[in-house]
C-alpha cells in the first residue's frame, strides 16, 4: 500500500509528464486530452468541496460549469463582434483577456451558487439532490430557448482568448495555464479543508446537532462551502469553453452534472486529490475504451459499477488501502 501523499504527488507529476512526453513525440491531441483532464479535475475539486467535505450531494453543478462557460462565451462574443454587452447606465465592452473572463466566471457562478444554495439548503437528502437538479435543468432549458446567444446551437468563438505575453493557441501553453490553475485550486481547497471553517464543515456533515451545540450554524457553513464550490466549478467551465472555443447548452445538461460527480466518486469522495485521479482516469478510459469499441460506454458503465460496488474509497482509497478519507 502506498501513502496517500506520495500517491497525490505521483498523480500530479504524471499529469504533467504525459503532455510533456506528447510534446516531444509531437502528439498535440494527447496534450488536448490532458488539458481536458485537468479542467475536469478543477470542476471535480469544486464539487468535492460541497459533496465530499460538506456532504451536499449536488446533481446541479452543471449550472455553475455552464455559467462559467457562458461568461466566457458572452464576453468573447461581444469582443469578436465589437458590440458592447450593455450601453446603459454605463457601457460594458466584451473582452478576450483570460484573467477578466476567469474573474467574471468565478463571480457569476459564485452569485448563482449563493442564490441556489440559499433556496436548496432548506431541503436535505434526496430532496436536495433533486432541487439542485431542478435548478440545473432550469438553466439548461433557459439557454436552449433564449435566442440572444445562439440558443440551442451555442456560440462559437473563433480565436482562443489571450493571456498577456503568452500564445494561448499553442496547446502546451494552454495546458500549462490550466495546470497552474489546478494547482492553485488544490492549494486553496486543501487550505480550506484544514482551516477552522473546513473542520467545522466536516463536523456539520457528521453530526449537525453537535455543531449547533457548540454555537455554529450548519446552514451558514453549508452555504459558504456550496458557494465556493460553485465558483471553482464555474472557473472550470470558463476554461472548458476556452479549450473548445465553443459553448452550448450541453454544458448545463444533467449528464454534465452526473459526469462531474463521477470524477469525484471515481477518485474518492472527500479527498482533496480524489477528483484529479477520477478525471484523469475518466479521460484515460474514454480514450482507451473509445479506441477499442464504438460502444465503449458499456465498459465505462461496468467499470463504474464495479468501483461503486466493490471499491468504496474510490481509486485513491483502493491504492492507498484506506476506505475513508482523513477528517
Amino acid at each position, binding site marked *: 500500500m502506498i501513502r496517500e501523499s506520495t500517491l497525490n504527488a505521483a498523480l500530479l507529476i504524471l499529469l504533467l509528464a504525459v503532455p510533456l512526453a506528447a510534446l516531444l513525440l509531437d502528439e498535440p491531441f494527447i496534450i488536448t486530452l490532458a488539458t481536458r483532464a485537468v479542467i475536469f479535475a478543477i470542476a471535480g475539486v469544486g464539487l468535492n468541496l460541497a459533496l465530499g467535505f460538506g456532504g451536499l450531494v449536488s446533481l446541479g453543478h452543471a449550472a455553475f460549469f455552464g455559467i462559467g462557460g457562458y461568461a466566457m462565451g458572452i464576453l468573447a462574443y461581444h469582443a469578436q463582434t465589437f458590440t458592447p454587452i450593455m450601453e446603459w447606465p454605463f457601457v460594458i465592452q466584451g473582452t478576450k483577456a483570460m484573467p477578466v473572463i476567469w474573474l467574471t466566471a468565478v463571480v457569476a457562478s459564485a452569485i448563482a451558487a449563493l442564490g441556489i444554495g440559499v433556496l436548496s439548503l432548506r431541503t*436535505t437528502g434526496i430532496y436536495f439532490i433533486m*432541487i439542485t437538479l431542478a435548478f440545473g435543468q432550469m438553466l439548461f*432549458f433557459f439557454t436552449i*430557448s433564449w435566442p440572444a446567444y445562439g440558443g440551442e446551437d451555442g456560440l462559437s468563438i473563433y480565436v482562443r482568448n489571450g493571456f498577456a505575453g503568452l500564445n494561448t493557441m499553442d496547446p502546451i501553453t494552454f495546458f500549462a495555464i490550466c495546470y497552474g490553475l489546478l494547482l492553485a485550486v488544490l492549494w486553496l481547497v486543501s487550505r480550506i479543508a484544514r482551516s477552522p471553517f473546513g473542520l467545522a464543515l466536516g463536523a456539520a456533515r457528521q453530526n449537525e446537532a453537535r455543531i449547533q451545540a457548540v454555537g455554529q450554524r450548519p446552514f451558514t457553513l453549508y452555504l459558504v462551502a456550496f458557494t465556493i464550490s460553485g465558483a471553482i466549478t464555474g472557473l472550470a467551465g470558463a476554461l472548458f469553453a476556452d479549450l473548445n472555443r465553443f459553448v452550448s447548452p450541453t454544458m448545463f445538461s444533467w449528464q454534465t452534472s452526473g459526469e462531474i460527480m*463521477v470524477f469525484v466518486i471515481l477518485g474518492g469522495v472527500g479527498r482533496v486529490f480524489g477528483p484529479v485521479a477520477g478525471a484523469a482516469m475518466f479521460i484515460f478510459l474514454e480514450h482507451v475504451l473509445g479506441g477499442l469499441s464504438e*460502444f465503449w460506454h458499456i465498459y*465505462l*458503465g461496468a467499470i*463504474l459499477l464495479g468501483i461503486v*460496488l466493490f471499491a468504496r474509497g474510490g481509486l485513491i482509497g483502493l491504492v492507498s488501502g484506506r476506505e475513508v478519507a482523513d477528517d
Partner: protein
Amino acid sequence: MPLLLLIEQILNGLQFGVMLFLMAAGLTLVFGVMGLINLAHGSLYMIGAFAAAATAAATGSFLLALVASLTAAAIAGVIVEMTVMRRLYDRDHLDQVLATFALILIFSEGTRWLFGSFPLYLDTPGWLSGSTVLPFGITYPKYRLAIILVGLAVAMGLFAMIARTRIGIQIRAGENDRETVGALGVNIARLYTLVFALGAALAGFAGALIGAIQSVQVGMGEPVLILAFVVIVIGGIGSIKGAFVGAILVGLTDTLGRSLLPVLFGLFMDTSSATTIGSSLASMSIYILMAAVLIFRPRGLFGTA
C-alpha cells in the same frame, strides 16, 4: 384563446400527466419501500418501448406489443434488482446515484448495439387511429384518449392494490419498518424484487404507450426520468397519492404553460418577444414549480416529516 382549444390542451396535459404517473409510481414505490434512488428507471421505460416496437414489427399486433413491453421491462427489472440493486439498499444516496448512472450507460449503449442508432417506429393500431367526438363538440385523437383512460385505470388499480390487498399491506408495512415486517415472516428479499418488477413493468408499459406517439430511440428515457423525479419530489417521495397529484400538476403546467404563456405575454408586449419570453419561461415552468414547492414544503406536498 378559444375555449375548445383550451379544453384540448387540458386533455393533452392530462394525457402527459397520466403517462408521468406510470413512470413516477414505480420510482416512488422503490424509493418509499427500499430507500433507493433509481436513475436507471428511464432505461426500463426505453426497454419497454423497444420491446414493443420489435414485437409490433414482428407480429403486427399492438396488444402483443404491449404485453411484450410489460414482460421485457419486468424481466429486466428482476435481473437488475437481483444483481445490482440489492447491494445498494444499505448504501448512501451518492453510491446509488452513481451505480444507477452506470446502469444507464450500460443499458443505453447495449440497446444501441442491439438496435442501432436510428429511431424505430411503433404505429398506433387501426382501431385507435383517427379522432373521436367528445361531448360539447370537442374532437380529440382516440389514441390519446385511450392513454388517459388506461392511465387512470392503472392508477385506480394501483391505489386498490396498495390499500386493499395483502401485498399492498406488506408494501406499506415495508415502508414503515422493514425489520419488523421481516420478523413477522414476510420474505423481504422477495417483496423487494416484486416491488421493483412492478415499477419496472409500469415504466415499460408507459414507454410502449408513448412510443406510439413519439419515436422509439436510445436516450428516450432520460428526459422522462427527470420529469418523473420532479413529479415524485413535488408529490412527496414514497407517496402514491403524491405521485398522482404531482404527475397531473406537472403535465398540466407543462402543456398549458407552453400554449398559454406566449399568449399571456402577448397581452402587454409585441408578438415576437412574447413568443421568446413565453416559451423560454414555459420550458422552465415545471422546474420553477418544483423549486417553489420544495421551498415552501421541503418534503413535497404529501411527504411525511
